């Protein structure tokens, strides 16, 4: 057993800091609300380590840039596009490895103009996820380097995850 421990652990053992005081969440909330007082709404701490906020799409790029540069959110986990009756919601899940936080940033686009600013210049991992959202849901990402279909054949005509698509599934 002793040998096993020695083999597995690389370097010193570091205990993760306790998160009971909720300090990092409040820091993030304060900073973001200071920067975008008018466009950032519905800030909410869902549970420990998970925050939720809505932002208007014109400030999305700036908000993401300051999230990465000032607040240490270095990892974009997921981009999901959801279709509602009159709007598309694009949900960005952004992780901070140091603060152990997950921020759920929701932005809305109207149905007749489904386009937001691409954030693949900030997080390179957003590149393919935005292509996927374009492929399946038909959301245009402005200033994307290579916005093409990724999962479906390039001559496919529809965006199959939209609710009005009836081709199967």
């Amino acid at each position, binding site marked *: 057993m002793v040998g*096993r421990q020695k*083999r*597995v*652990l*690389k370097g010193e*053992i*570091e205990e*993760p800091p306790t998160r009971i005081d909720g300090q990092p969440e409040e820091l993030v909330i304060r900073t973001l609300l200071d920067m975008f007082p008018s466009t950032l709404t519905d800030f909410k701490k869902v549970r420990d*380590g*998970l925050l939720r906020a809505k932002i208007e799409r014109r400030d999305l790029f700036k908000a993401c840039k300051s999230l990465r540069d000032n607040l240490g959110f*270095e*990892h*974009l*986990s*997921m981009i*999901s*596009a*959801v*279709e509602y009756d009159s709007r598309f919601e694009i*949900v960005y*899940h952004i992780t901070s*490895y140091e603060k*152990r936080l*997950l921020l*759920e940033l929701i932005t809305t686009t109207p149905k007749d103009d489904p386009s937001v600013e691409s954030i693949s210049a900030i*997080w*390179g*991992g*957003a*590149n*393919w*996820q935005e292509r*996927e959202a374009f492929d*399946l849901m038909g959301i245009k990402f402005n200033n994307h380097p290579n916005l093409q*279909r*990724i*999962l*479906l*054949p390039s001559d496919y005509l529809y965006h*199959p*995850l939209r609710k009005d*698509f009836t081709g*199967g*599934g």
Partner: protein
Amino acid sequence: MAEMWINMGPQHPMTHGLWNLRIKVDGETIVDAEPEVGYLHRGIEKICENRTYTQIIPISDRLCYGSSMTWSHLYCLTVEDLMGIEVPERAEYIRVAVLEMQRIASHLMWLAAYAADLGAMIGFIYTMRDREIWIDLLQSLTGSRITYNFPRIGGVAHDLPANWDRDALRACDYMDKKLKEYEDIFDGSKVFMMRNEGVGILKKEDALNLGVTGPPLRASGVKYDLRKDQPYSVYPELEFQPCYHTDCDCYARFKVRMDEMAMSCHIIRQAINNMPKGKWRVVSPRNAPVGTGLGRVEDPRGEGMMYVVGDGTDRPYRLKIRSPIFVTVSAAPKMLIGYKVADVVAIMGGLDMCIGETDR
């Protein structure tokens, strides 16, 4: 030799699934690379919108054939978050034991494919042989070899069979011995080290920027394991450490996975020894409330995530799946450019491709 594009795939021994890696080579050196996925796109997200919550569990099993238990568990976790269900503690312990078994089986599968890619047939055969032990354990628990359909919304399908815990502990002891043997086979082989050390460097900044998660991220020196840092099941009550490495190369990825297998054995032992008695399932409601649910687990391949939107009916309004490999493979050009054609198998094999979840 002039520069030329080579298509590796969709049918190619290197791919382990259906995808296409287009590389541009100058002689034997790669100057450009471009992965292309989508050959296994099944439209699971659309299918899930037309199935009830319970019907989706077997479909989520088929997301990733290497580690199907993880994905059905992730789905159940997400829907429990949406419905607000508290899972009994025994169910959580059973889930953790089974998940870590699945992690070992998945890593063994990766090791087999990796060894076969590098040309060491002996590695393929020995790891496949030892994977059967874990598959047998999971089979005696769930009745199936690959797609288990075992987690349920609000618990697990059934309790442990008799003597299963004893067999699992024995398998852990056996695995500890076998891991030493693998170290002899792989680390003791000069050729293996030559093929791995210093190959496929992915620096920490690039890994963070490109959204790489899981073992490749930890091999780049980021100590981040969701089980430890944003714990989701009963992982906070178990004692373990995330395995990481700072060399950023293929050997580091290999080493991280080998250490994770040993650590998983350690977790299985704890989970089985500390398992409380009690119920293993609570009844889940048929209809979900209006709202969103989020689940996030440490898949063997990285960060698996699901986002479900409920609209009050018995079917999800939208289910979004985040596949770790889908994001990781987009970092492939960063790792490939500048190396030789023969390094493609080492680098892409070190990522542990699973196309089922990538293409969804």
